[in-house]
């Protein structure tokens, strides 16, 4: 098999992967800075290190496919098309935020982009993804539901209920586990009797595979293939993407449960510089084009911060809105 990048995708798409991963990293690192400054408060879980999963996976999907995720989801929303400005404003708690400042970092949601939410109860998104898949099937829509979750979520009852249900009702759900080896400070081997997460689907007769989550191309290929399989067979599938988060679980975690040597080892596998090297080695980009892309990403993030800073706070009388439906509301306008 030809493993050269050009045999897999056109240059433009390859460069876009680099651009997106760079933007995600810039965005997350900027969030850390804004948190230190006190502009972002509350829980903040950063995605740095895992970019190849969000970027590769999203590229392997159809834009109509529903995506659901957990609370480490800024890049997933941004790669799906959410404006970094509006996401940053949400993190700042501003009125211009993606969810009017009511959700914050953990609850991004944009149905117009089929991005159906970040959920902060570990494993809470499983049954919702299953229900969305049922709705699409019932409505004869040609889309699948993609449910991202962490290695820590697989010991929730919801995971097992969701796998069983999706297979039983033959629903098009693609489960993607981002195995970064830790659920806060608990290593996967200390929480799962079978640490090979993809193997856990055998009790539900669901095919699965493991993929290198530090390789954007590998993720893209696996997800594209799996999404086509799910859509074609109308049945669930699971991908375990093996990856690593470079930062602590959240901003308050110094990460003492991991040895510096372990972290360094994984940083050598950083998906961004490694992909850059391949692009250069194969003559798809020069160091200059990539530097230019990095600069562009930095500008976008700077603009996002500026937008968030300058945006107004929500009005006080906004606090009681959106608890219940307004009179005459049209449901699911994005489905029209």
């Amino acid at each position: 098999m030809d493993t050269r990048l050009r045999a897999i995708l056109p240059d433009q798409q390859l460069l876009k992967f680099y651009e997106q991963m760079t933007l995600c990293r810039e965005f997350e690192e900027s969030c850390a800075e804004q948190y230190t400054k006190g502009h972002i408060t509350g829980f903040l879980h950063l995605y740095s290190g895992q970019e190849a999963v969000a970027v590769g996976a999203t590229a392997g999907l159809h834009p109509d496919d529903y995506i659901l995720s957990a609370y480490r989801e800024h890049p997933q929303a941004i790669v799906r098309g959410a404006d970094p400005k509006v996401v940053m404003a949400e993190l700042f708690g501003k009125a211009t935020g993606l969810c009017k400042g009511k959700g914050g970092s953990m609850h991004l949601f944009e149905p117009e982009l089929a991005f159906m939410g970040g959920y902060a109860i570990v494993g809470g998104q499983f049954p919702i993804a299953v229900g969305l898949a049922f709705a699409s099937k019932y409505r004869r829509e040609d889309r699948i539901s993609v449910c991202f979750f962490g290695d820590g979520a697989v010991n929730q009852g919801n995971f097992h209920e969701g796998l069983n249900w999706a297979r039983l009702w033959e629903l098009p759900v693609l489960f993607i586990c981002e195995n970064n080896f830790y659920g806060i400070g608990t290593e996967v081997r200390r929480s799962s009797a079978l640490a090979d997460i993809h193997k856990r689907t055998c009790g539900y007769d669901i095919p699965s595979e493991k993929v290198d989550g530090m390789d954007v191309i590998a993720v893209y290929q696996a997800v594209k293939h799996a999404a086509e399989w799910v859509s074609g067979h109308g049945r669930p599938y699971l991908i375990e993407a093996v990856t690593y988060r470079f930062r602590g679980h959240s901003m308050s975690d110094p990460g003492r449960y991991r040895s510096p040597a372990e972290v360094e080892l994984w940083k050598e596998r950083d998906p961004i510089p490694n992909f850059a090297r391949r692009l250069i080695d194969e003559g798809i980009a020069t160091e200059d084009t990539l530097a230019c892309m990095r600069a562009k990403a930095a500008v976008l993030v700077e603009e996002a911060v500026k937008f968030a800073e300058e945006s107004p706070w929500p009005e006080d009388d906004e606090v009681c809105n959106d608890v219940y439906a307004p009179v005459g509301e049209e449901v699911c306008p994005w489905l029209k």
Partner: protein
Amino acid sequence: MAEMNCRDALNLALKEEMRRDPSVVIWGEDVALYEGSFKVTRGLLAEFGEERIKDTPISENSIIGAAIGAAMGGLRPVAELMTVNFALLAMDQIVNHMAKIRYMFGGKAGLPMVVRAPGGGGSQLAAQHSQSLETYFMHCPGLYVAVPATPADARGLLKSAIRDNNPVMFLEHELLYNSRGEVPDDPEFTVPLGVAEIKRRGDDVTIVAYSRMTLLSLQAAEELEKEGVSCEVVDLRTLAPLDRTTFLESVKRTSRAVVVSECCHTCGVGAELAACIFENCFDSLTAPVRRVSGLDVPMPYSRRLERLCIPRVEDIVAAVKNVMQQKY
């Protein structure tokens, strides 16, 4: 008008709404082939087929979660919990998800869905199968809570709940399924959510109740009438939205109030109602508000003991007499 029981009234409402709107689907444990553990979904599989009426695994959290997803994806699911006691296994999806999604996503998603759950005590089903958990849901912003007492209200409220864009906890009392009453023939008959009904007019005291306790309160009022006490009975019909105006206006008129609920006494619905009356009607009250509610114990099996835990007509009568005698 036709006379029917609550089970048939609910069944009719489900059928009518499914005929009216193809986006209405129903699922739950044993709702399709077995036709529901209380037979509320009788005949639905035959009429609507497997795609719209579905048996699920015994996975309560997912029964609600999948309904949330379906509602987000353009359907109007009605999820049945076999009994409300099992809602406790689904509290994560009910409270952390169903109630919060609209708000935390900035109003961009509505959840037009209903969760039907039979409950209440009185059938010697012991501690784990006899609870009245309405307080739990009423305490949670983002949910509507319907608690019908009569067949007409059961039908009318369920139809409104299915058509509403808010998630509704629809709590049915197991002892009312066979209870009969007049139901309007009009297939478009609905009862709005959030509107209490004065089920009996009176001058001396207001009894505020809901679900099965409404019927007991009406019986108590009947008995008290013979003793010369005129009771007004307000049936809340929904606990959220709570129609405060109707019962507060009534109490202002009668100057006395007894609040009746089957749920446990401490921090129960009665506590909320009493506080609301004290806050708003203090100057009109001629006696302290009294609560009649469930005993603060896990429900015992033995019917000799169980009867002590659920408010009876005589408890309501005694509370009203007490209120009539007391004076500030």
